[in-house]
């Protein structure tokens, strides 16, 4: 359950921003968790509620964007969408794929007051 440490990381980012941008309450947190990242969005949702209790982000709504997995296929020289790692190129069936997107793990935006 490394999602818990990641939630702590999200809270660290929020608290750093709270000091810089001077807000006292976060109402919404927008994240990007790519389909090929090593993270289960549901576990993030659970961990986030626990980690943010009694903090500036207590009760904040979590909005998670899940960009699809993108890989460059060396066999057919094109960028393709793959659902998970280990899946073949949907065009040519090759496994010579290099992940180029959908592995992000990012705090995009905060709605604060």
């Amino acid at each position, binding site marked *: 359950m490394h999602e818990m440490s990641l939630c702590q*990381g999200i809270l660290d980012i929020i608290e750093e921003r709270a000091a810089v941008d001077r*807000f006292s309450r976060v*109402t919404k947190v927008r994240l990007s968790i790519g389909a090929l990242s090593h993270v289960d969005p549901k576990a993030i949702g659970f961990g986030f509620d626990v980690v943010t209790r009694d903090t500036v982000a207590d009760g904040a709504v979590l909005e998670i964007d899940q960009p699809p997995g993108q890989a460059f296929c060396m066999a057919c020289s094109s960028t393709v969408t793959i659902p998970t790692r280990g899946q073949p190129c949907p065009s040519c069936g090759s496994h010579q794929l290099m992940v180029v997107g959908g592995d992000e793990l990012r705090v995009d935006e905060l709605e604060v007051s």
Partner: protein
Amino acid sequence: MCTVCGCGPGETRIEGHAHEHEHEHEHDHEHEHIGPDGTVTRHTHHRHHGHSHNHDIQPSRLIKVEQDILAKNDRFAAVNRQLFAASNTLTLNLMSSPGSGKTTLLVRTLTDLRETRPMAVIEGDQQTSFDAERIRATGVPAIQVNTGKGCHLDAQMVIQALGVQPTPRDGVLFIENVGNLVCPAGFDLGESKRVVVISVTEGEDKPLKYPDMFATADLMIINKIDLLPHLSFDLPRLIEGARQVKPGLEVIELSSTTGAGLDRWYEWLGAHQPSSPSVTA
């Protein structure tokens, strides 16, 4: 704008705002009183007045962050990487499920190579220092990091361990991660290479079941190959699955018990040892 009454200056302010203003209110209400003797009096109040008040409710605004969640870990990892580079240390992050034989492989490796180069070990486990004690019995320094409830080592734990036990200059630092095929994959420790260990007593489809771990590995060690005659383990399928997840993944098959294949592992270590002399001021 004020979320209570809709008024407001229409501009966002960094400091939480509290505004004072006048609202006109009309309060008309009709009601009845029942007296102690049962008489009912019905009447209406007409009130028209102005009053001022404070709002503590602050306007909401959006802040663009665009920051990697692992940024903090990655900053520590970058420091570790500099420390390893400065001391010419080959640092390996060893990861596997519990029971793949990581510690046994390490004990064997340290015993065989301890005369050839400086080595040290950072041992990660949730609890106990059993593994560090096993390592120290070989004469190689080891430090135990107990993660408590944590399921993986992170770069900050490594930097803390390095404060107690310095990097082996011109040698090899082995970091034995917590036995777990999921979580350690996400955390850069600043290592030079990632080594995933899998034993033939596990399922051959693990690379496809736990792709994140294999996707980030530089080398897959297949351990306990001496047991193959007793098992129905599909070795080619394991390697094929791992290379579906990580094309070109290097593979070494060995047995820490019999010593088969260890020469290839030691060659691999030698080939990845940083050779350039470290620059000292």
